[in-house]
């Protein structure tokens, strides 16, 4: 329990409890945002001509190993690698094919929504 004494007032608050609760709320929101971006990345993929769905199964949400690292979304990461390995070719384009970004598009389109989701989560604390 933390106690803050000012001039004529005293505030008592359980900082650990509040921060723990905030961490839990942000953790849940981060997870929601990650899955939202993943869903939209798959949607963009599905719009591409010749899409077979093979790549969609290789887009995964992972938890960062680092403390406070949150979540990250990987298309064909080392653990999920299965041929054909064309995720980066689609995303960045190559000298012989046009770039068809789906990961960065999904991230950018959800940036504002993610900010709102974090704000809402914090407001509800």
């Amino acid at each position, binding site marked *: 329990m933390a106690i803050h004494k000012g001039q004529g007032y005293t505030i008592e608050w359980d900082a650990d409890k509040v921060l723990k609760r905030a961490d839990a709320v942000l953790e849940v929101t981060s997870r929601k945002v990650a899955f939202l971006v993943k869903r939209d990345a798959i949607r963009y993929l599905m719009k591409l001509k010749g899409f077979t769905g093979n790549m969609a199964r290789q887009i995964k949400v992972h938890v960062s190993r680092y403390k406070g690292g949150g979540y990250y979304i990987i298309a064909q990461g080392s653990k999920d690698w299965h041929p054909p390995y064309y995720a980066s070719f689609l995303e*960045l*384009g*190559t*000298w012989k*094919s*046009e*770039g068809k*970004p789906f990961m*960065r*598009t999904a*991230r*950018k*389109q959800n*940036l*504002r929504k993610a900010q709102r989701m974090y704000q809402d989560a914090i407001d509800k604390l």
Partner: protein
Amino acid sequence: MNKVFTAIYNKFNNNVAHGAYTSVGGRFYLNVAPQGATFPYVVFFSVADANEYDTSDETEDITIQFNIFSQNNSVLEAGQILTNLKSLFDNCSLTVTNWRHLEMRRRNTYPNNDYEQSPPIVGYSVEYDILIEKTRS
């Protein structure tokens, strides 16, 4: 979006003496290079576009990517083109019809090579964020 593409294209073509233009011989293409295009060249395309509105203004935050490709036995040529491209576009001002250009900021650079070709193709992908705004009509 077309207005931004035009602005980028004009920026490039209005600087024919700049290293960015001369190092690729003016070969600067939208979306994809023509079949059999001579190396080196630059391709640019839109990655993402996010709109934002407030009571008076409309803002567009556009991510544009430039792909540099060079077929050479050395990485130096692609590296030099990258340096020139950065010097032309980093924090530059664009003339976008009916819009105010606010900023053009470089974000990420990735290698984009194809070593299976002979000679190998060495490339870079450079990402820029462009911010433009106009008064809402």
